[in-house]
């Protein structure tokens, strides 16, 4: 029985015998297997791979992709056959990367018209898709970049590199020169804020406007009351998009009043009914509609 003793001058034995291996150290050259964490409900797919980089160090590469299903294609037999037809005409020399067909970077919605005497049902329908996203009083996350609500905040927007920067300045037109430049007025003529930055703005202001109509004013707040307190107080009544507490800049204390914006008007109404006269932090709250509203 002769052992093959490895020469101490050799860096690594060419043929490993498991009996000679010490613990895990010598298994460094083996890599963990590739993991695929399949698309979750948001369509996020993670692929974790391990490999050696140039310096010989083990690196872990995590690739996160969003798998998005644009359409469900249910074909009958003949349609499936057509799928395999050869390209003809001008499409013959087309390479896969040709830019003829592309998915729009903007999310286009079927914009509901703003009827002047809007019925409560219509408001509810508009808010319905929003309400569905925030089940049970969670905070509604509004993303400014893609305008899609309920999924993510602006900084976490998966499409943040796709939207033009001009869009983000829509809220403060006076404060930005870039939006004027970006609006592409070739003559250098003045373009008023209302005419800049395209359709996105109408949709955005549409959504905000509806929320502003469901705005509730809270007065007689104690000095220490802040936004999170109001949020916690009003959340049980429904989805809240925005809370604001007026602050005195000098003292940092609350000026005693604030505003809460609800997604649904009914929730706002219930909040008013329940919380008006409610004792909070040893002061009696006054809760009412932000501007006098006729129902």
């Amino acid at each position, binding site marked *: 029985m002769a052992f093959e003793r490895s020469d101490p001058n050799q860096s690594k034995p060419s043929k490993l015998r498991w009996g000679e291996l010490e613990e895990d150290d010598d298994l460094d050259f083996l890599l963990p297997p590739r993991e695929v964490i399949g698309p979750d409900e948001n369509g996020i797919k993670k692929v974790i791979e391990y490999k050696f980089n140039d310096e010989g160090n083990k690196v872990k590469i995590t690739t996160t992709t969003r798998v998005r299903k*644009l*359409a469900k*294609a249910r*074909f*009958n037999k*003949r*349609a499936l056959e*057509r*799928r395999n*037809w050869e*390209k*003809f*005409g*001008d*499409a*013959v020399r*087309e390479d896969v990367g040709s*830019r*003829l*067909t*592309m*998915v*729009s970077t*903007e*999310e*286009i*919605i*079927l*914009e*509901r*018209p703003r009827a002047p005497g809007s019925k409560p*049902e*219509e408001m509810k*329908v508009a808010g*319905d*898709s929003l309400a569905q996203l925030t089940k049970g009083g969670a905070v509604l996350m509004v993303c400014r970049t893609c305008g899609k609500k309920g999924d993510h905040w602006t900084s976490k927007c998966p499409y943040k590199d796709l939207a033009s920067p001009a869009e983000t300045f829509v809220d403060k037109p006076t404060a930005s020169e870039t939006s004027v430049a970006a609006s592409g007025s070739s003559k250098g003529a003045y373009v008023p804020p209302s*005419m800049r930055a*395209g*359709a996105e703005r109408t949709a955005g202001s549409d959504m905000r406007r509806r929320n502003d109509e469901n705005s509730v004013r809270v007065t007689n707040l104690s000095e220490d009351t802040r936004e999170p307190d109001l949020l916690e107080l009003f959340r049980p009544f429904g989805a809240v998009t925005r809370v604001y507490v007026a602050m005195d800049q000098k003292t940092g204390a609350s000026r005693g009043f604030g505003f809460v914006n609800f997604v649904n008007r009914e929730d706002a109404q219930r909040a008013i009914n329940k919380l008006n006269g409610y004792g909070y932090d040893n002061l009696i709250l006054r809760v009412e509609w932000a501007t006098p509203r006729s129902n």
Partner: protein
Amino acid sequence: MRPILMKGHERPLTFLKYNRDGDLLFSCAKDHTPTVWFADNGERLGTYRGHNGAVWTCDVSRDSTRLLTGSADQTVKLWNVQTGTQLYTFNFGSPARSVEFAIGDKLAVITTDPFMDLTSAIHVKRIAKDQTEQTEESLLVIKGPQGRINRAVWGPLNRTIISAGEDAVIRIWDSETGKLLRESDKESGHKKTITSLTKAADGSHFLSGSLDKSAKLWDTRTLTLIKTYGTERPVNAVAMSPLLDHVVLGGGQDASAVTTTDHRAGKFEAKFYDKILQEEIGGVKGHFGPINALAFNPDGKSFSSGGEDGYVRLHHFDPDYFNIKI
């Protein structure tokens, strides 16, 4: 929803048509080359080369093997859908404005424009199964309407032909004798050129869109006016959803408003209306120019619009589209 943008045409779109199975979309434009796309992902399948003028119209047979296109070069061509080869060319004395296969694909109705001394006319041609037997002769030629006939379609069971055009009158003709059966009422009818016509899935009613900024829904048999939908823009294209009671209008820009319009990019929209309540449901913006063509996929789950900007926008509806209530 995220529309798929297809920029295959260099010039404005004129017409869009889905095939019966809903997997192919045919687009016609002023650039002489009708194109066919896959209707699910917008991938281009091929183009039909051969016309020498703007292609105004097209129609595809029910089995998706034959394509008929009508063009300003005074010809109507019959193509093999799969290979793109021309099978036959019908020659006319003036540009062809509208074509439609009959039920059964054995006949086709073609309208031609007024040109020089020729008045506008409606032709009925026989389409043979085997292209070697194809002849040029017309089964029937109907003359009469003044001005361009923008669209002519077959009525139920191929018994009638419905035509509409520049004189703002919708007419129903007998398809065998060519006799005029009915005319739309001048009072309640359109006041300006009728630009487009679309039939309901079952053929019992049809929708006409006109430059007078309205679209009207008519009964096919009696030609009574059922509904009217009003917009602020001249209507260039109309479409009806085969699944829900929705009507879509696509339009342009009033000439007088050109200088005062704000140039918000992507402002031209396809407007959705409730068919029965006549109320506007909403609009889908995105085109950079007036919308000239609209088509619904026969399964009702997607639609496409073609504009003056040369783009075809293919929209697959979000699930909440099907839950819209007024």
